[in-house]
């Protein structure tokens, strides 16, 4: 029998299990509220994300796998895939370097114009992609000084690969920086100072201390940046000129095929883009699953 420590009186034994049973953590909702919230969330996801994704695949395979493969094997399609990969291969590393540099500057130094730089980094997010494309048309178009000069020297920017790369870089540059800035600000300069005081050079400090501290954020930023670089439509559409087999990226190619009522081909290329998104997600989940402890330790430490 338990004895109440305060009064010294025997406590009725039945009262305690009952009390324990009815106790619910204050932050936990009732079962009904839980069910409703889960249903809403899952229903929304199914309706807006899963259904369209399934539809894409169904449309692509409507006339069978043979037709699907044939559509992908077409030279123009192959050219579009190649161009998309090329653009991403240039834009992503550029933004990786830029993003780390910008995040480093913003998070670890105090300088004039820092707030302005932070706002500027967000610009591509806040401005419509079409405008982002138009900026380059104005900058390098035949009417502009720069455009005329470049043309005279035989360098094509607009309606050529360089223009597409520029527009893509512009649209995707916030991804890495945005991911890193809060992370690096949160971590401060303590670890770097510790490394320097132990005799490490600037590069060693970056290599052994800063980089490992930000690697998960960096990887995530790069994944997002890559997904967007391959999927960007608006800005690229303005500067590309839609020359088949030359300046068409995959998203642009999908549009052209669709407008030509070539639905199987359009959706076949779409499946590639959709798969890219899925692969990105799976890759990210895998990393979180495989290195979850380390990521959590990095985040909370």
């Amino acid at each position, binding site marked *: 029998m338990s004895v109440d420590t305060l009064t010294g009186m025997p406590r009725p034994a039945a009262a305690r299990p009952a009390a324990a049973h009815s106790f619910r953590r204050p932050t936990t909702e009732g079962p009904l509220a839980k069910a409703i919230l889960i249903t809403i969330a899952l229903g929304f996801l199914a309706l807006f994300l899963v259904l369209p994704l399934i539809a894409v695949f169904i449309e692509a395979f409507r006339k069978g796998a043979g037709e699907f493969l044939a559509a992908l094997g077409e030279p123009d399609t192959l050219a579009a895939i190649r161009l998309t990969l090329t653009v991403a291969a240039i834009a992503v590393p550029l933004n990786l370097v830029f993003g780390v540099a910008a995040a480093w500057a913003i998070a670890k130094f105090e300088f004039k114009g820092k707030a302005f730089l932070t706002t500027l980094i967000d610009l591509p997010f806040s401005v419509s992609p079409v405008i982002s494309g138009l900026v380059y048309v104005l900058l390098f178009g035949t009417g502009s000084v720069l455009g005329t000069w470049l043309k005279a020297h035989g360098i094509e920017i607009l309606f050529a690969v360089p223009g597409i790369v520029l527009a893509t870089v512009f649209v995707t540059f916030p991804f890495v920086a945005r991911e890193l800035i809060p992370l690096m600000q949160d971590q401060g300069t303590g670890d770097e100072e510790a490394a320097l005081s132990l005799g490490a*050079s600037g590069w060693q400090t970056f290599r052994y201390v800063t980089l490992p501290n930000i690697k998960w954020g960096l990887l995530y930023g790069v994944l997002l940046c890559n997904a967007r670089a391959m999927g960007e439509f608006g800005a690229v559409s303005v500067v590309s000129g839609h020359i088949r087999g030359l300046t068409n990226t995959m998203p642009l190619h999908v549009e052209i095929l669709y407008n030509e009522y070539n639905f199987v081909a359009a959706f076949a290329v779409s499946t590639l883009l959709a798969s890219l998104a899925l692969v990105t997600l799976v890759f990210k989940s895998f990393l979180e699953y495989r290195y979850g402890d*380390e990521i959590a330790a990095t985040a909370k430490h």
Partner: protein
Amino acid sequence: MDVSIRSVSKEFDGYPALHDVSLDIRSGELIALLGPSGSGKTTLLRLIAGLERPTAGAIFFGDEDASHRTVQERNVGFVFQHYALFRHMTVAENIGFGLKVRPAANRPSKREIRRRASELLDLVQLSGLEDRYPSQLSGGQRQRVALARALAIEPRVLLLDEPFGALDAQVRRELRRWLREIHDRTGHTTVFVTHDQEEALELADRVVVMSRGRIEQVGSADDVYDRPNSPFVFGFIGDSSVLPVRVENGKLWLQDRFIGIEVRDVPDGPASLYFRPHDVELLDGGGGCIAGTVTASRRVAGTRRVELEVGGARERVEIELPVDHPEAANSRISFRPRRWKLFPASGGTAALSATDDGSAGKADEAELMLAASL
């Protein structure tokens, strides 16, 4: 390694964090920088380390001017307030980091680094934790790893910023003793920052008391406690009570009452009388004492603290009595400080400049120790 700080000032965007600080640290000494928050302790420590650059002045390591040396070149061991352990490295990798990043010519082999790390872990009494990550350690253990990491580079000077600041009282006391042992064994010149006076007085060979970007006093625990050279130090170290008094012909007056203390060589005028609440003798009224009405009486551990209202201006002072003292129950108490110090009348800067031109030194000479007559 002797460290000499010569007239160092530091400004942050025009805000002076240190004014003209000079300090000589002898080789092998354990020195505490003690002061209230914002007094510039961390700033001074970071200047010694080379993590900040002085606005003016120079810092010498031995005979060499280190002012323009980088933090890497100074070879100091710095233990940060929040440890700053590398979270993605194991304990052994953390400790070995300073050796790993050495230029190839004098970098020990991997095995040698690992051996050194284990050796240091033994020293800080954490043997067997080589492969843990910092997140798997307790606060006290992290603190020790941080110290081992700083010791690994065989630093010329060891600098610790509030080494025990984030730990609970029990662990602090343990680590304090332990740090003293390590210091005695390794003999590193060590400077540590603290705002805990007990820690500073107990641990350090000499204590540097800082306030508002200046060094107020440097001395042993006895010096700063028994012979404080400024009102600030008197008030900051240990308990203190103050009374505004007047000097007239070498006698101290509280309003119209002579309080039974005579001084020599002190100019007439207002002054502040500082004394320790426990260092008083009770008298039975009459002349030549300080008399007050009891306004509050509190039991604090082994003693009783009595708050008195003194004189017409109702100045409040605190004195400490033995718990069983018969007078403690009275409503009126007369006493006289057994030991005291007189500083020229308050008004912070006036007192400070008085310290500089030596008139506080006269007050020093005037210090009396009245024979205990209890």
